[in-house]
Structure formats: C-alpha cells, structure tokens
C-alpha cells in the first residue's frame, strides 16, 4: 500500500468498538430510566428503614414529681431489654396527660398507693408491648426489693449477685458476630449484582444479535477481527454497567449515612462497595463473554431469551440460594461452598463479604478461580462467536459452532 495510512492496532480497534457501545448506550432513555429508578429505590429503602426504626428506637416516658425516682431504674431495666427510654418531667398529672394526648409522651408514670409497686401507668390508648414488658419487670423488681427489705436483706447486694450469675458459654469455634445492618447490606449487594448481571448480560447478547439481524456484522468483520468486536462490545457494555453500579452504590451509601440508617463504619460501607465493584466486574466479564457467544448462535431478538437461559439459570441459582439462605443463616455451609464455585461466586460471594465473617482464603480462592476461568471462557467464546456470527437464519447448534473451523 502507499504506507502513509495510519495503522489501526488491536487496542485502538477494541477501544473504538467499546466507545461506540458506550456512547450509544449511555444516550438511550431506557438506560437512564433504569439507573434513576434503581438509585431512587435504594434512597427510598434508606428513608423507609429510617422511618420504621425511628418509631421503635426509644420511648418517651413522663414522670410526675412523685415518680421521678423511678426514672433511673426504668432506664436500667429498659437497657437490659435492649430498649431506650427518654424521660420527661411533667409538672403535674394533668400536664402529663395533656402531653399524652398530644402524642408527645408514650406513657406517663403516676404514683398509685393501691399498687404493690407504688405506681401505675397512663397511656393514650394502648401500650407498646416492649414498654409494657420493661414496666412489668420494673414493677416486679420494686415488689422483690420490698420483700428483700422485709427479710432484712439488702436489695442492692441481691441484685448484684443476680447480675453475676449468668451461664457462661465457651464456644469451641468463635462465631462471627453478624450484625443486622451488614446482613441488609449483603442482601442489597446481592440484589444489585444480580440485577446488573441480568440487565447488562442480556444487553451483550442482544447487542450481538442486533449486529447479526441488521447484517452489519459482515461489514464490521471486513475490518476488525471477531475477537476484537466481541471484546469491544463486552468492555463497552461492562463500563456502562459499572457506571450504573457506581451511581447506585454511591447513592445508597450517601443516603444510608445521611439518614443515619447505616451505622456500620464508613470503611465497612466503602469496603462493601469496593467488593461489590470487584465482583460485578468479575461476574460481568465471566458471564458477558458467555452471553456474547450464545447470542451469536441466533439471528432474531426473540430467540435471545431461550439461548442465554442455560447460563442465566446459574446466575439465578446463586442469587436464590443467597437471598433465601443467607439472611437467616449467614454461616450456612451450602452458601459457603457454593460461593467459592466460579459460576455462583459473583452473586453469592459479594453477599457473604458484605455480611462479614468470610475467611480471607475463601475470598482469595473464589476471586482466583474466576480469574483462571475467564481466559478459558474467552477462548471458547471467541471460537463459538467466530464460527456462528456470520451464519444467519436458523439457530446454530452449539456443537456445530464449536466444531467448525
């Protein structure tokens, strides 16, 4: 040739293909809407959790002058039961009742000489079960103290002895202290990865079929190699999905911290997001190349669903096991074993990692296995893709695509 033309290497070709995917897909309405909906959902989740937990986080209890000494013992009892009580002083019983009616107080403690405990409780309509338990325990203690005094004992000593006498448990294996917050974080991570693999993985298969249906693939293959086209498509759509994931992840963390719903440390939250991204990338590349190869087998968009379903079932299986087993049993050995197997790892491992308590070796082995598997899948997928992508019409059999040179 004349030799003055610029030479297009492998990487620029892949980058051009990826760039086209990126610019056309970021501009589509469906992508923007999906991202916005997911971001709004995760913010809404934080707000709802805030509202739900806000109503049960503490009780507003009013005391009249005579019952004020009971405030401190009630705090202790409530704390032992995992409740918090905020005490308010009412200037009179009438003042306290007014506050009850207005909803400022959950309960008003008034003196009651007829009661053995010396107090009774006024509420607006009914009393919260947890608060009733706390007050019952308090009444029981007062009655017990009176009996101890009658028997010439010291209530404080008895209480101290009682507090000390607990059953000591010696675990042979230290269990991991799972926190509800981390469990929720894990479930959210699992849902995000799952949705992302479904949406973006399908998009890869559809993109391949789009080129096949419109026949543009022949024109493309006259200038780029099949693997460059496939790699560019996977990279481009992967980036599109990554941007979506980052937007949602950051929205979630910011909303969680801002509403105070997330009380786990910022490092733990950021750690979850980083693991989420690592596993999104691993899972996406692993599945996307498989989806690209499977997509190349068919020529019509209607057939995409059925041709990718065998791979899709693996994504769904990992997700279903994670979402159904892990919340109630985070240390489930079924989930533990499956989370190391490459095909299930992308959905299960990030859930377990967010919940915490994953031994370092398991995290490393699962990442390592996926990384080892990817080149093998790339080789296999490139072969299928190359052999099938120019055959339009009837669905190409997988065995044919693998065999043909």
């Amino acid at each position, binding site marked *: 040739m004349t030799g003055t033309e610029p030479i297009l290497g492998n990487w620029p070709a892949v980058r051009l293909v990826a760039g086209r995917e990126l610019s056309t897909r970021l501009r589509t309405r469906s992508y923007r809407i999906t991202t916005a909906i997911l971001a709004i959902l995760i913010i809404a989740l934080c707000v709802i959790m805030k509202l739900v937990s806000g109503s049960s986080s503490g009780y507003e209890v009013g005391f009249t002058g005579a019952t004020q000494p009971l405030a401190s013992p009630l705090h202790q009892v409530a704390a032992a039961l995992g409740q918090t009580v905020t005490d308010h002083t009412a200037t009179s019983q009438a003042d306290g009742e007014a506050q009850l009616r207005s909803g400022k107080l959950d309960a008003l403690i008034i003196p009651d000489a007829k009661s053995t405990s010396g107090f009774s409780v006024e509420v607006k309509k009914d009393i919260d079960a947890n608060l009733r338990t706390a007050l019952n325990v308090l009444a029981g203690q007062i009655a017990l103290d009176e009996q101890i005094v009658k028997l010439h004992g010291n209530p404080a000593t008895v209480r101290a002895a009682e507090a000390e006498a607990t059953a000591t448990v010696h675990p042979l294996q230290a269990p991991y202290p799972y926190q509800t917050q981390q469990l929720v974080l894990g479930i959210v991570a699992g849902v995000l990865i799952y949705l992302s693999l479904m949406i973006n993985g399908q998009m890869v298969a559809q993109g391949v079929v789009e080129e096949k249906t419109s026949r543009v693939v022949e*024109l493309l293959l006259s200038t780029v190699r099949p693997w460059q086209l496939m790699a560019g498509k996977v990279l481009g759509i992967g980036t599109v999905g990554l941007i979506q994931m980052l937007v949602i992840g950051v929205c979630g963390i910011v909303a969680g911290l801002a509403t105070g719903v997330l009380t786990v440390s910022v490092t733990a939250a950021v750690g979850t997001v980083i693991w989420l991204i690592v596993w999104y990338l691993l899972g996406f590349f692993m599945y996307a190349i498989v989806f690209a190869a499977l997509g190349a087998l068919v020529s019509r968009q209607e057939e995409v669903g059925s041709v990718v379903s065998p791979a899709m079932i693996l994504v769904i299986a990992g997700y279903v096991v994670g979402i159904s087993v892990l919340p109630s049993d985070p240390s489930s050995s079924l989930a533990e074993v499956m989370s190391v197997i490459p095909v299930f790892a992308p959905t299960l491992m990030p859930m377990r990692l967010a919940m915490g308590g994953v031994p370092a070796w398991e995290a490393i082995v699962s990442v390592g296995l996926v990384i080892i598997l990817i080149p093998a899948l790339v080789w296999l997928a490139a072969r299928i893709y190359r052999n099938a992508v120019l055959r339009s019409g009837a669905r190409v059999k997988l065995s044919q695509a693998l065999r043909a040179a």
Partner: protein
Amino acid sequence: MAQRQLEIDKISKRYGDLVALREMSFAVRAGELFGFVGSNGAGKTTTMRIALGVLSADSGEVRWDGKPITAQTRRHIGYMPEERGLYPKMKVADQLIYLARLHGLSTREANRSVDTWLERLGVAARRDDEVQKLSLGNQQRVQLAAALVHNPQILVLDEPFSGLDPVAVDVMSDVLREKCAEGVPAVFSSHQLDLVERLCDRVGIVRAGSMVALGGIEELCAAGGDHLLVDAPDAPAGWAQGLPGVIATGAEGRHTVLELQPGTDDQAILKAALDTGPVREFTHRRATLTELFRHAVSSDGPEGSQAA
C-alpha cells in the same frame, strides 16, 4: 513498476460435503472494472468474503501487489456485502464516521470524508437521521458511502446495483468509473448483465465454484460468434431453422436472433427472409453478455455442487 493487481489464486472452499469454490482464479488490475457474474450459489459471494477475510479459504491465496493480503491491507478495501447492513438506530453520519475510523482514519479525516461522500451521493440532508428512517434507496446510498468513506484502494462490491433506482444506478456507475480512473481496481458482482456489459472492462463468469469464462468484454463477445437480427413480421415461427450456417435461433421481441457459423453467407439468409414477406430490419450483432452467460452456464453437463 509492475502493474499492481488483486489476484485471486486457486481458492477452494468446502462446507462439509458441499464444494463452494474449486480453484477459483482471476486477477483485477489497477484501474480495471471487473464484472463477476454467475448464477445464484455459483460462489461469487464466497469468493468476495474470502478476499475480505470474513471467511477463510481451505486453500489458495489472495494477493495484492504480489504479496499475500493481510488484515492491514484489508483495511484499504471498500466492501459492500451482499447482505446489506448498517446499525438501524444509529445516525447516518455517526455510523459512517465510526466505520471510517475502524478503517484507520482519524476523527477529522473521517468527518471530512463523510461530508464529501454524503454530498456526492445526495444524502447530505439525512446525515442526522437514523438509518432505519431512510428510504430503501437512500439506505443503499449510505451503504455505498460506507464502502467508500475510507478512500479505499481496492473495491469489492457484492451486487452493488441490486435495489437501486435508475438515478442511483447512474450515480453508482459514475462513482465506479471515477474510482477506476483514479487507478483503483474494482470487482463487482451483478445479475444485471447489460449493466456489466456496458460498464466493465473485463468479466468473469462463474459456474459451480470455478471460473468458466474470463476475459475482456470485447474479446469474449467477439469469440461468442456472429449474430444476425432479423425483423420479418410475416415470417412463420421457425422459418430460419435448417438454413445453412445457422446454429441456433431465438426471439427477442419482434426480432429473430440467429447465431451463425463463422463464414456463413448472410445473403442466403436475407433471401430466405424476403421469401416470407417484407423485411424491416436485418443487422449483424456480436454476442451479448447475456448470450455468453447462458451458453457458459448451461453448457458442459449438469450443474455441480452449489453453495452460497
């Protein structure tokens, strides 16, 4: 300097038991317009796909300028696949810029070239429309632009004229002639044999995966024998059969077409024609490409294995 040419050298390809190409060979010189004709399934598309590297051959070689063609050289080929295709939802200009850049042009060069070609092919007004919104004729023009935007040094066009309106056929013909004048070798396949005859310098006729006739239009047609066109309105059907020197007879509208043996006395035939009544026209004509084609495709035995 040796004449630069695109050489297809003994290319064979089989799909399982199906022989698609059997030692297909021909060459297209710089500045030459080469017509590639043959029945459906004769192997034209397969040959072009192999030249573009979209398919690989079982044996044989494609060379440009004496050297085996590589992925790098292929970037300089303008290709129009038989299966037309562009991204339906991508804008015309964006799409062409993308394709030009895939062929190695810089963004600026690509932009300039796209503008030039859209203008030249009369679709500049549609540059920001999605391809799917264009009429079929305009889509074809964009498809041709896609083959030309990277200023190719070789053109390989599979059925470039199919589906074009007469105006677009003229535009396309002009572009092809112009490219050839610049020294670009061009191969195109077509079923419109009159068009091939009018445009091409050389033609190749393919049958069942191999070349059965190859050469300049003039020489091929001259070798195709002498033809006589007679308009004798009152003549009964078959009036010329059995006349000395007449090999075959046919009809073209009101005319009878007679294929003559070399050295036949045409005056004897004229006399026979006059015996039937008035003769309005009596002309010699060399064989047309259509006649050559029918001859080449139907002669020597049944069709062999065929593939697309």
